[in-house]
């Protein structure tokens, strides 16, 4: 199963840094993640889309299309709104 890595306050909401989630696309993985960890729902998803400023990467490449396919070996990383410099 693809591995999902969570960062910043998403870890506290999910109670973990990392978990394996079934799904054939990034969107399916994210939806299944939210189903398993409901507190993430209000932070990550809004009207079926990623909330503004939520960052999702697939193997380190930014993803904007939730239909992007994922494989068993892939790593999906999800970051809440972050800033700095």
């Amino acid at each position, binding site marked *: 199963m693809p591995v999902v*890595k969570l*960062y*910043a*306050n998403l*870890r506290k909401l999910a109670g973990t840094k990392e978990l394996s989630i079934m799904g054939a696309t990034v969107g399916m993985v994210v939806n299944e993640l939210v189903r398993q960890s409901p507190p993430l729902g209000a932070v990550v998803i809004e009207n079926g889309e990623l909330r503004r*400023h939520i*960052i999702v*990467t697939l*193997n*380190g*490449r*930014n993803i*904007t299309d939730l239909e992007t396919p994922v494989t068993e070996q892939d790593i999906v*990383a999800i*970051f*809440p*709104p*972050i*800033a*700095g*410099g």
Partner: protein
Amino acid sequence: MAGWSEKVLDIDLNTQTYKTYPLDMEMARLFIGGRGIGARLLWDLVGPDVDPLSPENVLIFANGPLTATGYQTSNRFSVTTKSPLTGTVLDANSGGFWGMQFKKAGYDVMIVRGKSPHPVWIEIRNGEILFQDASELWGLRVYALTEKLGQNNHKRNVLCVGPAGENLSRIASIMNDRERALARGGPGAVMGSKNLKAIVVEGQYRPAIADPDRFKFLLYETRKLLAASPLTSQALPEFGTVVLMNIMNNIGALATRNHQQTQFEGAEAISGEELTEKYLVKNASCWACPIGCTRVSKTDRVEGEGPEFETTWAFGAQCGVDDLAAIIEVNSLCNDLGLDTISAGSTIACAMELSEKGYLDSDLRFGRADLLARCVEEMAYRRDLGADLTEGSLRLATKYGRPELSMSAKGLEFPAYDPRGMQGQGLLYATSNRGGCHMRGNMVGLEVLGLPKLIDRFQVQGKSSYVILHQNASAAIDSLVVCKFVNMGVADEYFARVLSAVTGIQYATGDMIRVGERVYNLERLYNNREGFTTKDDTLPPRLLTEAPLDGPSQGWVSNLAPMLREYYRTRGWDENGVPTKRKLADLGLTDLV
């Protein structure tokens, strides 16, 4: 006129005398304050024949029309000088409280010229300028000196140099309010070269505001905008700037071991999440700042502000160190000694690579957290290898025959973002007027975080327009002077409304970016006059030719050449990187050349 105090304090340390005179208000209208006014004055005062560490160099401290008005983050100020590290125009700006206090003392600008025959500190109090003997203070570290001179955040504020500035380290910072830094490019060495140990300010005036009702509404609106933004209301207060560590590592753009890799296996151990969980004591804020991004952290040995992301990276990933407690402690040591943490960490990393490859005979090796504090102490006092390290990485690497191992542009060490994974960032570094820097615009928002929108970080064509926009916006914000983090909740154009309410001059949408463009072009003219050419708009060979062997940026190098050509065209500069007469006329700069 409201906003500005319309007053310049001009100090001659040769004679320990001063004069005051009116600020040129046409200059103020065109360049606003801070970095802009600093660049304009430096153009007239310091020519190409001046050695940065000679008495003929000047320090120009400047606030802006918004400073001390109470507008969100209106605490900042800048210092402008010719850099002893790079030889370029240099401005560095800082937050805290000193800038607010300096404005309340009734001045927009303070020029410091010459060199005192003996150590001196300056006290500005009750309208008086006092030259005090600093012979017994010379040698004191920053924390002890700041306390001794009576630091009180809201009444009396101390700006000073530590031993690094006294010993003319080219990477010495000027410190204010104990742990705030005018850090980059070595302004502390300029202050030390003048035998000037500290400037202490007590202010008593309130800046006049042209339209108080309008200003009050804009304050209210800005508060709402910052509260509504998840960036300024949650991300920065909750995790601070170090939260960038994991994402930069995730995307393969976290420079590691002197840019030999773009991912660090120890990133999680030095992340914002780790800092918050194990070392955070509380948040802190600069004056009039509702964001509160400052971390107060504690180890068994130290407690204090920081570390910020760039510091944590410089002593962490860049040195191959995953010991966060050691990084917190060396950050505190740098502040106490008055050293720029980015340049200090990156110069040590350069020495580590030189040593590992046999070009330098030392025990420095990547991962040696136990040697960081020793190196920093040696830098501040020019002891042993520190005498070489304190000259910065380019001089160090050149001395040992491998200048290409300095990870810098124009001699200023880069921050954390590796340009091989962020094409726009490479162009930004190469064209930054003060050298490799992320505060002259930063593409991390657009290329990584999606702020305000996400663009392809590997895209080359069309990147120059984004870089130029960010560079101009940064120059405008640095001239107001406010914190760039406010810009995450408030658009660039909004600042024109605030400036209009404060000064009574009607600045239109787009005027702020135009001010920034004017400042950027003036700085470029200054560097051109110093002899910098298009050959200096470049990156180290490693970043142009050595692609990462693995990770998300695998196979990529910085594709600088086409971006640079496009950049010059878009800027309205000729093929040699010189602003054209037409561009200068457009910006009202014709009289300078």
